[in-house]
């Protein structure tokens, strides 16, 4: 457990040591979000900026106004929707690039690094990381498909089902199992990422096999580390959600809501750096 804690804390030192990388990723997140949020609020301002309904709908979910907006000004939304798909795809690739850069830089810790090392690392391992991400994405989708098949093993036709109780209890069990599997796969994928950066192989198969057997060998340690990270994420997310609920609808809280929202997203990005670096640190220690 000592090694896990050490790795966890070292990971945090890496985060503090990578402020530029951290801020750069936050800036990119903000920039990409702006590509969606700005046209959306521009459209809202144009079609409803002078309407009194816009004030009535703030702070609580207003089904009538949302639907009137979508039904009467939906064309504008359609254009933003297709733009959003592109933004999300590019950001996905960017995240792959960032993760590669983070692990590359984490390996230099506690020595000095240059920002260009982060970019160089991202570039060097991008395609391999992308392949890994796609493989895992496929695995996740297959698991979801399998889970759906198990839940609906008796079919979905109300004509054939005796009642919905079987469906409900199977769904409950399968969702729990699925969450555990996703958690474990996420932990394995982080280890594989480190192995990829330590290998000169163009193919990632060997890194995948090595990463998996490494995880199996040190199962408890890596699971403990991942649990620590998950606990922290849940704690901060919970606090943030409580704050949002509390501040919901109060126009006077605008700057505070904005500020805390930005702190929260920075925390999430920082946690990603923390997660990857502490996995690297744990690999070094076991």
């Amino acid at each position, binding site marked *: 457990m000592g090694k896990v804690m050490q790795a966890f804390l070292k990971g945090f030192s890496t985060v503090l040591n990578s402020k530029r990388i951290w801020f750069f990723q936050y800036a990119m997140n*903000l920039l990409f979000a702006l590509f969606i949020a700005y046209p959306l609020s521009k459209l809202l301002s144009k079609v409803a900026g002078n309407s009194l309904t816009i004030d009535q709908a703030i702070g609580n979910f207003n089904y009538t106004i949302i639907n009137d907006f979508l039904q009467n000004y939906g064309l504008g939304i359609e254009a933003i929707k297709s733009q959003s798909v592109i933004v999300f795809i590019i950001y996905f690739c960017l995240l792959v690039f960032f993760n590669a850069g983070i692990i590359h830089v984490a390996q230099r810790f506690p020595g000095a690094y240059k920002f260009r090392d982060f970019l160089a690392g991202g570039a060097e391992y991008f395609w391999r990381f992308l392949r890994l991400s796609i493989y895992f994405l496929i695995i996740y989708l297959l698991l979801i498909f399998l889970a759906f098949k198990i839940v609906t093993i008796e079919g979905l036709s109300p004509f054939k089902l005796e*009642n919905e109780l079987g469906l409900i209890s199977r769904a409950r069990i399968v969702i729990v199992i699925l969450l555990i599997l996703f958690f474990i796969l996420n932990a394995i994928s982080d280890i594989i990422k480190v192995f990829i950066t330590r290998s000169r192989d163009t193919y990632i198969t060997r890194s995948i096999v090595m990463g998996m057997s490494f995880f199996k060998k040190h199962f408890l340690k890596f699971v403990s580390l991942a649990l620590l990270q998950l606990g922290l994420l849940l704690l901060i997310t919970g606090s943030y959600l409580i704050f949002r609920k509390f501040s919901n609808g109060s126009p006077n809280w605008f700057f505070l809501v904005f500020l805390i929202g930005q702190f929260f997203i920075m925390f999430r990005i920082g946690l990603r750096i923390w997660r990857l670096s502490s996995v690297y640190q744990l690999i070094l220690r076991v």
Partner: protein
Amino acid sequence: MITRVATILLFCLSSSCLLKGQTISPRIANYKIQVELDVDQKTLKGSQKIIWQNISTDTIKELRFHLYYNAFKNDQSTFLKNGGRDGFLSNSEFGWTEVFSFIDSDDTQLVGNSYYDPVDDGNVKDQTVLVIPLASPIMPLGLGEFEMEWKAKIPKIMVRTGYNKDFYFFAQWFPKLGVYEPAGMRYATKGQWNCHQYHSSGEYYSDFGNYNVSMTLPRNFIVASSGDLLSKRDEGEMTVWNFSVEDVIDFTWSCSPHFVSEQRVHNGVKLKYYSYPYKTHFADRYFNTLSFTMDYLNDHLGPYPYPTLSIVDAPLHGIFCGGMEYPTLISSISFCFLPKGVRVAETLIAHEYIHQYFMQLIATNETEEPWMDEGITTYYEGRIMDALYEGNRASIDVLGFKVGNAEFNRTEFFGSSNIKIAPNTRKSWEFEDGGYSSISYNKTAIWLKTLEGLLGIEKMDEIMKEYFLRWKFKHPCKNDFVDIVNEISGTDMHWFFDQVLEDVLVCDYAVDYAWSVENEETGTYYSSVIVHRLGEMKIPVEVRMSFEDGSQRLEEWDGEAPSFRFSCNENSKLVSAEIDPDRKIYIDKNFINNSYSIKKSKSIKHYFNRFLMNTQQALEAFNFII
């Protein structure tokens, strides 16, 4: 008019003759049915005595019966072909009814001369209307007594009726008489049978009468039924259940060996709830909603006149019988996997109970005028559910997502693919390209709420009370409803009905622009508001101008011209203008353009903040999978 008065006179006379005393309904079509259920063969064997009262001055030479089960006889029936359901049932799952004996009071067998008449579309494969010519006509104000023997194959449930596994729901299950409309009744210019084929939309139109029904079925089965249980006795492996109900337009029952039941009494009405063991926890939700709905309609329309009401909560494999309304028996749908805040069960039970008034007590013709049945019911569903769950949360209230009932219906209508698909007056089977529910249910509810806005809720309640009082146990049509609105409101509202009922117009009023200029000499402000009529519908509207000092000015506009300008000189600067500020015109398709604030809303930055943060979180969510 003379014919109508004569009809009413005859109607009263005949009722008292037939039933020896004051009755609440005319008791025209009366049935005593004995039916045997064969659960292995999935068949019903029935014999029924029919007493039919001719309330007209016409001599009746034939009787017309609905054989509803023949809609499931082959996939070329009008029901299956036009309902887009051909291929749904396999050969063993089809259903049918065959009448093999029909004897009059002179012991004459009449079935030999009977024939099917596809009155609506001429489809010879459709056998849902049986005509039986009479050997001895029924004389004016005369009584006809007949004995009928029939057999039916129960269809597998696909809609409203049938069996699945060991759950049975018997709706439209016995040969039922159509309605004979004497000249002057509804749209009849001469005496005629109104007995349409069974279509996939719209099913009700029948006469009031008394029912006494005995069902013989296996001993382990429990029966939920219209009316009250008179007796129950075992006969070998079978049990005979005998139910009776008076002054209703139909009789429905359901059975299953798994039924568990619970009874409560509300306002002297015995409420009998039948469900499956795994979903009995819905009982309180049903009873609570029902009690509120019953009280509401009792106060706003009049009393529910029957001693019982059965509620069937169908199991999952029987859900296609759920959400149905029959006299003194209603069915619902509930799903255990839905959160409590999704109020499907509550909405349905309220809706189906309201049908006890609109279709059962005020026995309109759903086949020809579905809006008078489903539309008025949906209007009351909105009023009742939104009163029960205040704050726009009657339909959904889950994790901050709140949706009210009336607003849900409004959105359903405006969200439909073509809001001009058909006028409200279209017959139910003529909605061939869709739109039946969005027009008959949703649009009607919206324009009734608009009528309520125009006349005021007190006047609306007065109208509906009078409509109930005057037309309960009768068959009103559109004109009767419009006449009462005009009479009670003291205004000719034809201009309104012409637009919302007969036409397919869109209503959209908007404030286009507003401004205010200071007159430096006088220190007053010259303010103007430009309003537009963007839709074709013309309704008088109010325009409210709000000023900086908090004062307001309410203007009226007849809503006729495509646009109009209001101007005024006031001591204060105009801040905003709003058309229809009290949302009386609920049929307006866009509430966003109903107001104009001279200064842009400060809320935009909050929305921007929200959009931005949510997008940021969503982008970072990829982190969980890569």
